[in-house]
């Protein structure tokens, strides 16, 4: 436990509010505002976890989650970045990838075996002979890796998604970003600003140095300037602020995506944000480039901003005796500030020969801090944490050891360019700043601030302002947005700021790329994947020359940190080493890259730029199902509902999922089913018939008034996509049904396949506005007769006409007939006589609003026959016994019309109609390799095979579509798609099931249909 400095004005924690959390089963105390990492550090935890491959101890390094060092398991979720996660009351935190504990990991010995694991070792060993790999894999999986996710883990928490739009999106809430946001918002534009930390302020937020701004006569510290800007931004009516929000992707058309971590008051834990903007300002700032030396990731080695922010933001002094090895002025500033806060600083080594801020040099001298110019850390000592460091001159001639508990190491800065490159900016290496800078910017995108190499605080603010104004200009130049005078005024304002920025200091000279004069066996270029300098050299010596390939071969930069640690160093090192080895130079020392003639090429970055929970992308669990008008009544009748496609449907009406009672009731009496999910359409207009001829395989000109026609639709491969019935209402006016699953795509399909013809027709989707009652069973006519007779005689029609309408006898309303009538003079019914379940059966189509009334009328009329509900499963068995197909069950994507035995539907004479599927059907007609739909019964009274079971011999020969134990037939029957040589009646088929333990079950091909083959029942 270390003491917290409670009185700093820069603090972002509230030391008065304690937060109790659990770490490895014990209670720990943090304070409000702490991240899990800072709270653990406060409690004395130094080793946070073990590394992926070598199980090296790892600790706090960057404080912004750029490496996996401090990833832990929190509340069951592995690989949580503890540096970015605020500690909460009752959190359960555990270390990961350790055997024992992070402090004493039994796998730690692997670190000594690194010589056995050169670059690409996974690719080169353990695959010959092939039998070795399964054994090796088990061991590797035990030893390597990060967190472990329990397979039955269920993600807790609430997730959400929002899709706002904005004129200008600003990425980064630092000084440049805030200025950009204010500049654009002051022009009346709607601005969104996104900041990854829970507060605005960026790298001004923790610094106490003077803000040197000529406009402000009274100088003030940077942090108060940051807070002044932040309060302006947060109170601006035109600016929407997203804090604790990481940007994970930027795309063409100025689309920006990210995720926000919710606060206690938010209704979400995390939410996905996708913003469509007219212009984008990227002011993402810089991160630090790791210094490469032996054991450069030993706990106790930290970056400058990590130590500085620990002190200033969290009130924690990271160590007692510190050594600095840095390459930029922020390092010198931190040394001065930390000295003033009470840290003992043994020396500050600087790799730069010149270019230091003279003011900082004076401050260092005032405090008697030894300053070593041209020195660098070459090796950290100490087995679990740093206890000594060797400092060396850049040429390696002089060395000196210092005992210390903290090494503050940073080679220089590197811009966060991912937001630009994802939007297709091309990067170029700039030898002045030593940055990769954007050569060409994406359209309507502007960069600002420190990522341009600016160091002077006023330059940074002005660059932000300029970017904001340029973004505003993008918006105002859009068609019909604004008048010319306004645009001219904006342009001249931009000119004046551009002139002003030229007076200010430009991009600062960056530190040259430096590696300590060591061999690099334990100099880590990538912490996540345990990749060393030595590994990179091995890869290059094997012939890899492109950083992109070296990245893959050594896996440097492929870990959770997404290249945050090696992103800059890898291409620089590759350029330096390849140049050096080609000229036989020593690979150590501080030679300038440019002078060696190699141009560093950055590796690609890809979204997500920051690890994102899949739960966040999934958003909230909206389960949106459609309900039929009969939903409530069927539930009241004991319906057991299931999700079927987009609908919730009553699948059963009892606990008996074999549905025996429901089935027997339909076969022997009368039942009713809610068929409202059926696709229902009306097509009319002068060219309506032409459309039907195009999409249906049958000759639709033969559809007769008063009759229904069953037909099918195919796709261009002849495969069946839909079946249903068509009714002619009038000339070029038809009513047709589609299967439930096709309803959503039907209009699109019709329009697509007529898109070149310019035909005049209208299609209306009536699926939701019409409901369907299916009335089936031998007593169905008696029930219907009672229903249609409930006419109170109020209509003016003459009696004989009415009598003929109300006549539902077999002669007046035969099988395949269609009739329209009114019930109680009110409910208009389209009635069809069909036989899907194989019995006398009527489909009554009525407007949805009348469904409940009609349902009650039918139920009331059926009472004397004891009418019962039946559900989708009973219907499935009934129609299967009759061998009526359901598309998607008796077919899959490759099943064509002929395979199903529905070839009789196809009219081959209507070539001019260019019917969809006709060409392919003609070509497939004599193809012996196609599957056939067959009926089969199980041998020896065996149980039905399961749906989807395979038909096999020594190979797979087909599969079972639907099979059930049939009560009507007293045996198990089913339909299957099989190779044509198995299709003959009498063929014995072998069925393989997952559950059968190698034992096959057998069936025999029998004629179809199984039930009432002559169709007497449904036709009489």
């Amino acid at each position, binding site marked *: 436990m270390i003491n917290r400095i409670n009185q700093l004005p820069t603090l972002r924690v509230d030391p008065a509010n304690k937060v109790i959390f659990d770490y490895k089963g014990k209670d720990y105390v943090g304070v409000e505002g702490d991240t899990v990492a800072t709270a653990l550090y406060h409690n004395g935890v130094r080793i946070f976890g073990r590394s992926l491959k070598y199980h090296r101890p790892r600790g706090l390094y960057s404080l912004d989650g750029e490496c996996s060092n401090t990833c832990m398991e929190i509340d069951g979720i592995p690989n949580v970045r503890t540096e970015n996660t605020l500690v909460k009351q009752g959190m359960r935190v555990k270390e990961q990838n350790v055997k024992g504990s992070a402090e004493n990991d039994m796998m730690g010995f692997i670190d000594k075996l690194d010589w056995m694991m050169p670059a690409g070792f996974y690719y080169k060993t353990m695959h010959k002979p092939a039998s070795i790999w399964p054994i090796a894999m088990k061991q590797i999986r035990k030893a390597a890796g990060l967190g472990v996710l329990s397979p039955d883990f269920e993600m807790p928490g609430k997730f959400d998604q929002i899709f706002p739009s904005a004129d200008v999106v600003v990425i980064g809430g630092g000084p440049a970003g805030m200025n950009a946001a204010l500049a654009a918002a002051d022009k009346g534009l709607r601005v969104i600003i996104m900041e990854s930390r829970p507060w605005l302020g960026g790298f001004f937020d923790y610094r106490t140095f003077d803000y040197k701004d000529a406009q402000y006569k009274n100088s003030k510290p940077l942090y108060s300037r940051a807070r002044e800007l932040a309060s302006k931004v947060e109170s601006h009516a035109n600016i929407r602020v997203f804090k604790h929000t990481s940007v994970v992707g930027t795309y063409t058309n100025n689309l920006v995506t990210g995720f926000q971590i919710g606060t206690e008051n938010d209704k979400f834990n995390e939410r996905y944000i996708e913003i*469509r903007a007219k212009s984008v300002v990227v002011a993402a700032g810089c991160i630090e480039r790791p210094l490469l030396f032996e054991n450069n990731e030993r706990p106790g080695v930290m970056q400058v901003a990590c130590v500085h922010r620990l002190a200033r933001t969290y009130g924690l002094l990271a160590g007692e005796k510190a050594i600095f090895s840095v390459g930029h002025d922020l390092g010198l500033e931190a040394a001065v500030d930390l000295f003033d806060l009470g840290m003992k600083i043994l020396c500050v080594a600087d790799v730069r020969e010149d270019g230091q801020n003279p003011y900082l040099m004076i401050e260092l001298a005032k405090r008697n801090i030894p300053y070593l110019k041209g020195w660098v850390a070459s090796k950290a000592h100490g087995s679990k944490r740093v206890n000594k460091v060797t400092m060396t001159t850049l040429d390696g001639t002089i060395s000196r050891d210092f005992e210390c508990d903290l090494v503050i190491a940073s080679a220089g800065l590197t811009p966060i360019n991912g937001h630009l490159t994802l939007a297709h900016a091309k990067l170029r290496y700039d030898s002045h700043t030593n940055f990769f800078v954007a050569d060409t910017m994406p359209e309507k995108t502007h960069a600002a601030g420190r990522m341009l190499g600016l160091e002077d605080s006023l330059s940074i603010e002005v660059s932000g302002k300029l970017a904001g104004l340029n973004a505003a200009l993008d918006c105002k130049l859009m068609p019909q947005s604004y008048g010319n005078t306004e645009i001219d005024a904006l342009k001249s304002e931009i000119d004046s700021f551009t002139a002003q920025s030229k007076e200010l200091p430009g991009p600062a000279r960056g530190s040259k790329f430096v590696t300590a004069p060591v061999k690099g066996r334990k100099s880590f270029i990538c912490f996540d994947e345990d990749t060393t300098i030595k590994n990179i050299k091995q890869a290059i010596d094997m012939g890899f020359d492109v950083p992109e390939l070296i990245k893959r071969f050594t896996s440097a930069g492929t870990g959770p940190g997404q290249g945050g640690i090696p992103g800059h160093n890898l291409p620089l090192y590759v350029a330096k080493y390849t140049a050096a080895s080609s000229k036989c130079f020593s690979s150590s020392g501080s030679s300038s890259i440019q002078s060696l003639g190699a141009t560093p090429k950055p590796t690609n970055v890809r979204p997500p730029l920051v690890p994102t929970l899949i739960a966040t992308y999934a958003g909230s669990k909206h389960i949106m199902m459609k309900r039929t008008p009969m939903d409530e009544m069927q539930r009241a009748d004991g319906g057991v509902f299931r999700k079927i496609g987009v609908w919730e449907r009553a699948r059963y009406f009892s606990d008996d999922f074999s549905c025996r009672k429901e089935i027997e009731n339909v076969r022997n009496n009368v039942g009713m089913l809610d068929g409202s999910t059926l696709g229902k359409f009306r097509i009319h207009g002068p060219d309506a018939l032409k459309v039907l001829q195009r999409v249906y395989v049958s000759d639709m000109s033969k559809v007769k008034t008063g009759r229904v026609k069953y037909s099918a639709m195919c796709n261009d491969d002849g495969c069946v996509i839909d079946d249903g019935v068509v009714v002619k209402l009038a000339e070029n006016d038809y009513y047709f049904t589609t299967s439930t699953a096709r309803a959503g795509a039907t209009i699109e399909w019709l329009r697509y396949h007529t*898109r070149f013809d310019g035909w005049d027709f209208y299609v209306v989707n009536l699926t939701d506005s019409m409901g369907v009652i299916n009335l089936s069973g031998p007593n169905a006519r008696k029930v219907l007769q009672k229903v249609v007779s409930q006419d109170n005689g109020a209509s003016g029609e003459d009696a004989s006409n009415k009598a003929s309408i109300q006549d539902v006898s077999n002669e007046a309303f035969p099988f395949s007939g269609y009739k329209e009538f009114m019930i109680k003079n009110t409910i208009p019914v389209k009635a069809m006589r069909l036989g899907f379940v194989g019995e006398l059966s009527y489909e009554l189509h009525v407007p949805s609003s009348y469904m409940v009334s009609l349902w009650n009328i039918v139920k009331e009329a059926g009472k004397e026959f004891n009418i019962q509900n039946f559900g989708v499963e009973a219907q499935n068995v009934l129609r299967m016994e009759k061998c009526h197909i359901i598309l998607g069950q008796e077919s899959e994507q490759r099943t064509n019309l002929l395979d199903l035995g529905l070839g009789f539907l196809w009219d081959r004479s209507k070539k001019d109609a260019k019917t969809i599927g006709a060409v392919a059907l003609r070509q497939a007609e004599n193809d012996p390799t196609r599957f056939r739909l067959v009926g089969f019964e199980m041998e020896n009274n065996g149980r039905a095979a399961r749906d989807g079971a395979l038909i096999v011999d020594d190979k797979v020969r087909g599969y079972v579509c639907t099979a059930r134990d049939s009560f009507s037939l007293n045996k198990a029957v089913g339909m299957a798609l099989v190779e044509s040589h198995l299709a003959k009646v009498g063929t014995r088929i072998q069925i393989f099931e997952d559950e059968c333990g190698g034992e096959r079950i057998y069936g025999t091909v029998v004629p179809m249909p199984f039930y009432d083959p002559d169709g007497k029942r449904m036709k009489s």
Partner: protein
Amino acid sequence: MSLTITCPICGKRDGYEFRFGGEDKGPRPDEDGLTPQSWCEYVHLNECVAGRQKEWWVHKDGCGSWFTIHRDSVMNVEVATPEAHK
């Protein structure tokens, strides 16, 4: 989705509202004289241009109409119709 598409009826909208309908390959050929080869090519083969191509889209969550646009398949942005196609 970064893509935006201009529907001839509804105007410029988010790409989520549309469904892709394939490259523009012209009207359905006459059935006579078609070989399995030429039919298969019409139905299944695509140019897959890296760059500007003319393609069909449907405004599925809007007016439901089918129309063509020109799209740069590398940058995934809608581009202006070239003069020759107007």
